């Protein structure tokens, strides 16, 4: 069978005034109808730029060169803007990540899905309405006749992803590029979207999957291309590449997937002092518009002992983050109580509480927005040390503690990588020598290899300083790797709790079981053979 998409020696470079950056260097692959090829890599690997170049959307200041770039018989290397427009959406479609702004938030879902139909006139104007409803139905959107009149803001993330899929396949394109199609979705929703994409592939659509998530790749792709720094480092059938990786970078990516490790054991756990105790916490929010209200946290109790990590796992809307705000006394509970180090906490006056705030610190998912953008790293950490009245340690000590070069203290956080930013946030949290650290999705925005390092840092700090972590994550692998005990939350309630291995290996609550079942799994790794690296491009015939 011949390929619908053939790429040979693709190079994409960006000119930004003085500097020229090569984002993609000599990438080749071929894609056949009904097959799925995954491009895997971390941020900066060039995987997304490759995808954009295939759509003629590499961006301002980019230069795209290739010895061959052919889509369904059309030579893509010499297209004018108008010719690109005729291909996009009709022969090649894009499924972007379902961020709220991936769909125009001011237009109805119906108009968004209808856009390619009207542009390419693949159906008569009178038939567009019916076709849109049919497409939404095919993408698994319930009650499509109602949804067409709604706007993206009124839909859940999963529904928005289905709408994006409906719009991408509206004109039956030969090739669909799925760029991180399940990132930021809950695992159960992710499983449904993966099923939908697998179905699409079975109907003969060729799929180019761009992902950093190897488990997602294992679920969908026939072949894998691993990219790093704009180059292909390894390629081959999915089972082979993920089962017996040949390149050290591929092995590192696989090793970094969280879930394999376990937290260091906690001897005499029951004898350790309780540092944080919550009983019967309830928090209700009024829903805007209607008269209803939402019990974001509903009768939640927990105890956290010194040196221990208590994981809190649940999907979006389960109340995890509200729980974090309650135990850090950022929000007052409607009912229930919180004790910190055995003393009053939630019902203290803010003036008294301020003196004790340093005992419980928080590390957020997005550290950058928790820094004053005008302050340097040094100033941020110096403030924290001054707040603690700590003269025994310097900013340099703190940076070394979290594995950063003390030279970075003169930089602004926005000039650091995501992993470095999170290390600075951790340094700021431990600077005041807290007893409890609330980690709210601390590695969710990081590349897997960076996330693995940050998790290791947290584990080391816990061992050295006896920190207790309340560790919030939607990622079961991360939870398993970090937590001694775990709480599973759904709709504001704790549905299951216990020792991590017991809960995750033998779940008693059906919700926990469904979470585990939804998790896409990696194929079993065979012992490394360390064999020859395959650097040959795939045959295109």
């Amino acid at each position: 069978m011949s390929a619908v998409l053939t790429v040979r020696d693709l190079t994409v470079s960006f000119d930004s005034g003085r500097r020229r950056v090569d984002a993609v260097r000599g990438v080749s692959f071929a894609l056949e109808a009904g097959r799925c090829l995954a491009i895997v890599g971390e941020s900066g690997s060039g995987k997304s730029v490759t995808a954009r170049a295939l759509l003629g959307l590499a961006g301002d200041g980019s230069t795209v060169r290739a010895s061959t770039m052919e889509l369904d018989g059309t030579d893509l290397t010499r297209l004018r803007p108008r010719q690109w427009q005729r291909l996009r959406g009709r022969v090649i479609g894009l499924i972007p990540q379902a961020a709220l702004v991936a769909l125009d938030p001011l237009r109805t879902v119906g108009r968004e899905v209808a856009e390619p139909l009207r542009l390419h006139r693949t159906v008569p104007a009178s038939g567009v309405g019916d076709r849109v409803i049919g497409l939404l139905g095919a993408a698994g959107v319930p009650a499509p006749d109602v949804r067409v009149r709604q706007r993206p803001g009124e839909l859940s993330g999963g529904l928005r992803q289905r709408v994006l899929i409906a719009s991408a396949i509206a004109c039956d394109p030969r090739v669909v590029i799925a760029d991180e199609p399940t990132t930021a979705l809950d695992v159960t929703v992710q499983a449904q979207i993966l099923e939908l994409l697998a179905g699409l592939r079975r109907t003969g659509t060729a799929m180019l999957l761009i992902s950093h998530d190897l488990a997602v790749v294992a679920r969908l792709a026939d072949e894998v291309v691993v990219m790093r720094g704009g180059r292909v480092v390894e390629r081959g059938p999915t089972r082979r590449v993920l089962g017996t990786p040949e390149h050290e970078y591929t092995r590192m990516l696989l090793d970094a997937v969280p879930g394999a490790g376990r937290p260091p054991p906690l001897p005499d756990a029951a004898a350790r002092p309780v540092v944080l105790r919550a009983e019967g916490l309830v928090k209700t929010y009024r829903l805007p518009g209607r008269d209803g209200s939402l019990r974001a946290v509903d009768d939640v109790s927990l105890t956290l002992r010194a040196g221990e990590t208590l994981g809190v796992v649940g999907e979006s809307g389960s109340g995890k983050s509200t729980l974090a705000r309650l135990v850090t006394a950022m929000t007052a509970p409607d009912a229930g109580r919180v004790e910190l180090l055995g003393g009053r906490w939630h019902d203290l006056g803010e003036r008294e509480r301020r003196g004790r705030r340093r005992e419980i610190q928080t590390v957020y998912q997005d550290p950058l927005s928790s820094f004053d953008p005008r302050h340097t790293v040094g100033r941020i950490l110096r403030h924290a040390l001054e707040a603690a009245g700590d003269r025994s340690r310097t900013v340099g000590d703190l940076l070394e503690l979290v594995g950063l070069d003390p030279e970075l203290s003169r930089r602004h956080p926005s000039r650091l990588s995501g992993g470095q930013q999170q290390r600075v946030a951790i340094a700021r949290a431990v600077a005041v020598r807290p007893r409890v650290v609330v980690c709210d999705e601390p590695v969710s925005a990081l590349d897997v290899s960076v996330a693995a390092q940050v998790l290791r840092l947290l584990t080391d700090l816990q061992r050295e300083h006896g920190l207790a972590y309340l560790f919030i994550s939607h990622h079961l692998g991360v939870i398993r790797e970090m937590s001694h005990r775990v709480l599973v939350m759904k709709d504001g309630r704790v549905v299951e709790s216990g020792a991590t291995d017991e809960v995750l290996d033998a779940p008693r609550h059906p919700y926990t079981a469904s979470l585990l079942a939804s998790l896409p799994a990696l194929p079993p790794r065979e012992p490394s053979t360390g064999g020859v690296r395959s650097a040959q491009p795939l045959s295109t015939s």
Partner: protein
Amino acid sequence: MRRASARLGHALLVLWGALTLTFLALHLGRGSVVDAIVGNNTQVTDEVRDRIAREHGLGEPLWWQYLSYLGRLLRADLGTSYQLNMPVRDAIAAQLPPTLQLMGAATGIAVLTTLAVAVATTRRPSWIRGPVTLLEVAGVALPQFWLAILLLTVFSFGLHWFPAFGDGPASLVLPAVALAVPMAGVLSQILRDGLERALEQPFATTARARGQGERGVLLRHALRHALPPVVTLFGLLLGGMIGGTVVVERVFSRPGVGVLLLNAVTGKDIPVVLGVVALTAAGYVTLNALVDLLYPVLDPRLRAAGPAPAVPGLRVEG
């Protein structure tokens, strides 16, 4: 409903504040009101002066004059002009049409120029944008009277394209342009900024990936995102435009409310000044209320009080 009444209360407050400030400024200012009524070149006896003061209630304490003025205003009585010897209402009514024509034309020109300039220069190379931005800044920064005189000199006296004075529609062009330039200069910069921000958003990429052309992405997606700040500023700049009519009408020797106000201020014709201030404040407040109604049209997410989704309880994940 609650929002509408709050809006109305706010409007009345603005109106009252504008009138009170003007009233105080005029009465506490220098010069005798009686002299102003009598006229500078007329000699009259003290009895006549007393009679004039009594007729206009000028002997009463200031607070009483203030309250009785507000009382008359509530009965839609704007009083009688000291200088024109006619009701203020009639004086304004006679001058209003040419001013409304001028402002209407200026607003139209400003809006069309804004749209055309912003759309034509969004995401263009700097050799196009640079000169345009310079013109925009110049349009905002130049004194309006100077701009008016410049237009008059070049396009009327020099090129003879438009008449300098007169009644026809052609004579409206130059004054309207003079009035529109500062507004268009500000609005087109804001609109272009908004368009460029919107075109960077992921939804613009999604639209391009569907085969939408750059112009289509701009007009069908980005424009609506870029308009709200433009609309806000438009409402505020309308107030400035009312002030601009005074200058422009004077330079082009056009009849209108602006000239009426100018003469009334120099002649201390208090009822006319207060009448014009009341009218402009009311107009400004009304226009801004209308502008507020535009937001939910542009951004449906603001229609929060609208009906709930047609299927109750339908919130299916995935």
